């Protein structure tokens, strides 16, 4: 008797939904073992990691605050990924969005114009799109690989930001710290819940989820993106422009990432720093996949991922564990998800060797 992995006649819908839950459960189990191996009481560690951060209103708003950029970028990425346009550089596009929005904020520093925030929003989207346009152009003109190009541009963006806050945009009264001036009140997202950091960016992200849902599932353009991803030859046959799909996928995801970057500097940070994101652009890739490239799934996945960020911080403070815990849990989650996804297209069958007698019985 042995186990055999065999292809399902068609992908299992049930496993499609169960797989992220299974992955989350396996992550918890692996975390349990990990905490034990580190000499921590696993129950207490789990409490610190997953419950403690959201035990009060402040915790919950922090959860939503961190989930906002994740769901915003995740929805954008999902649009591209559905079309097999693999934008891996959302982190770079986020940084460019922050730079563009930051530039506008600094220009409006001494004005109390009502348009500052709206302009920053547009500039942020534009910055992200511009950065995403580079891999789109290279792919459609020279057939380069957008995965590689978009990823490498993350480091370019990061160095660009670093130069800006070290040199031209450094706050002259900032004691030589590499950071810009604090943005004025008009260049910041309004706070939603008094006494917390939760701001308008959360509603922007929720709006993106709603628009993303309509776009992907109801609009003809979203339909074209899906066809391009599922069957490129069918898309060409139907007359959908393949280059347009690449541009669309890159610009939507880049734009969303740029808006997320704007939201960071116009929200919790309030100025430009050498680093404006703890890797939201990369974590959002995991969010998009855990959420099955579906906006509602992405909404839920972004909450989980946000909890991992908060838990990681709490584990540093409460358990004296390294900050790498966050990345480790993110990695575990993705690993288990990809592993569980195998069972969408395959199933396990127990193979018993056929006894020779049975063969004769059939023959007779």
């Amino acid at each position, binding site marked *: 008797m042995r186990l055999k992995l*065999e*292809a399902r006649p*068609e992908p299992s819908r049930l496993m499609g939904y169960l797989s992220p839950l299974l992955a989350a459960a396996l992550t918890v189990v692996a975390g349990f073992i990990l905490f034990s191996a580190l000499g921590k009481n696993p129950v207490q560690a789990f409490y610190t990691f997953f419950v403690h951060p959201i035990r009060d209103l402040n915790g919950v708003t922090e959860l939503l605050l961190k989930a906002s950029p994740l769901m915003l970028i995740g929805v954008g990425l999902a649009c591209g990924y559905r079309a097999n346009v693999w934008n891996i550089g959302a982190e770079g596009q986020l940084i460019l969005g922050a730079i563009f929005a930051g530039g506008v904020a600094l220009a409006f520093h001494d004005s109390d114009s009502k348009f500052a925030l709206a302009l920053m929003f547009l500039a942020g989207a534009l910055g992200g799109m511009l950065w995403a346009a580079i891999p789109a152009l290279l792919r459609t003109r020279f057939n380069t690989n957008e995965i590689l190009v978009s990823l490498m541009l993350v480091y370019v963006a990061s160095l660009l930001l670093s130069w800006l806050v070290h040199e031209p945009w450094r706050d002259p009264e900032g004691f030589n710290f590499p950071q810009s001036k604090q943005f004025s009140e008009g260049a910041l997202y309004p706070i939603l819940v008094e006494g917390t950091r939760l701001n308008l960016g959360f509603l922007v992200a929720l709006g993106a989820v709603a628009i993303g849902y309509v776009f992907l599932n*109801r609009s*003809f353009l979203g339909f074209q993106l899906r066809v391009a991803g599922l069957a490129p030859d069918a898309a060409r*046959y139907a*007359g959908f422009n393949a280059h347009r799909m690449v541009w669309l996928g890159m610009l939507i995801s880049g734009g969303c990432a740029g808006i997320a970057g704007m939201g960071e500097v116009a929200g919790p940070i309030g100025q430009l720093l050498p680093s404006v994101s703890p890797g939201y652009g990369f974590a959002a890739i995991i969010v998009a996949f855990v959420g099955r490239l579906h906006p509602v799934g992405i909404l839920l996945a972004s909450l989980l991922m946000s909890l991992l960020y908060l838990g990681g911080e709490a584990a540093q403070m409460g358990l004296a564990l390294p900050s790498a815990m966050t990345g480790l849990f993110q990695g575990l989650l993705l690993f288990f998800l990809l592993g569980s996804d195998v069972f969408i297209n395959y199933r396990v069958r127990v193979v018993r060797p056929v006894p020779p007698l049975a*063969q004769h019985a059939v*023959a007779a």
Partner: protein
Amino acid sequence: MSTTATPRIELRGITKIYPSVVANKDVSLTALPGEIHAVLGENGAGKSTLMKIIYGVVKPDAGEVLWEGTPVVVHNPAHARELGIGMVFQHFSLFETLTVVENVALGLPGNPPLGPLAQRITEVSQKYGLPVDPRRLVHSLSVGERQRVEIIRCLLVNPRLLIMDEPTSVLTPQAVRKLFETLRQLAAEGCTILYISHKLDEIQELCTNATVLRAGQVTGHCDPRKETPKSMARMMIGKDLPHPQHVAATPGEPLLALAGLERKSPDPFGVSLEDVNLTVRAGEIVGIAGVSGNGQQELLSAISGEAPVRDRKAIVLCGVNVGRMRPGRRRRLGFCFVPEERLGRGAVPRMSLADNALLTAHRYGYVRRGLIRFAQIAEFAQKCITEFTVKCGGPQAEAKSLSGGNLQKFIVGREILLKPKVLVVAQPTWGVDVGAAAFIRQKIIDLRNEGVAILVLSEELDELFEVSDRLAVIAKGRLSPAKPIRETNVEEIGVWMSGMWPGAPGAAGALPPSVEERHAAQA
């Protein structure tokens, strides 16, 4: 069946079950030495699976194989060849950049010296009338010549059982006759041949015994020489065949015109289109015959716009020069197209039939303000399912879940329901069961009678003679003149299929004809 001789091969109760389909159920088959035994059945009846079981490619779930009277388990193709079983697959496995002798050497155990091997290839090829130059590169060979290489490769090891899987689908009628001579000679020497096909006339001509499969089960045995194609068809599909009605055409104005269409193939082994001229008028069906791989794909993607050409005047659609236009703009002019590949090109496998209807129907009011009108498109899909008797679970069924024939009916139905002015259909009934094939042909003829200009590309000559008003042949990227169907016949079209029509460069003696062409010319 003789009781004196030991059967060369005997199958008893072979069953093979795949996750979604029972490929073979309790199949038994006996073939004697020197017998040409047909395995007959529609596409998907389980013929190929059965042959792969004999050749050791697939393991049966139950049943046994007796080789010359002794039970054997064939572990793999190498083991099969050791036993004396050879198989020529429908799709060849030759390396195009290597010579014939190098290709043959690759399939033999050890590292045989090429000189003597080439000598043996020549001997075998002369003995069985399979002329092939062992030093030639495979990419320069015609499809018929490639098949000869595959057969010679089998014959070198003196097989006692030769399996031929749909060998004639890639051959001209003349080449088919040559092949039959070779097979008869082999059988006379005592080699058993298992001949898989769904072409009834060929089986009647060649085979002395037949096992008929339907849906994985044996539905009958017969001696094809004593049957008619009609009676065998009944065994194959379980009912009589309808015959399409064809009345004389009254062609109108030209709606599709190709004028000096050219395209260099970017692929070194691809086919370049050269000076293709053709006119299709309203209310007529023009057929294009040809052995596959002679430029059909290139021609179709040029006409459909999936691969636009440089010269915008080379393709004229409803009076508009469309050479450089993309598929979407051509469709807006009233162009519809059924491609050869259904899954992945004509339809998205993982999408519902309603979504697949939207794929090409979206121009006809099924999208409003950028949003899909789900109810309306599902209605359209349902109409297509009903009118074309598509067996499926409804408009929300995934395209992938349909059988090939039903999906083909859906795609043909979708394109016809869009009320085209010009319809291009590639392989309208390829892999479709005989009943559905007759239905599709009738629908195409009906559409012609409504005044649509229709171009049909097919590898099945019978089909083209059945539906076309005029017939042209494509060979090596060139297109012959189109001849009215009443003024031509299978023999002439067969000669044309090797590129030898009056005025063709090969026929004029500008190029030395290949071995195949010389044979075609002799025939």
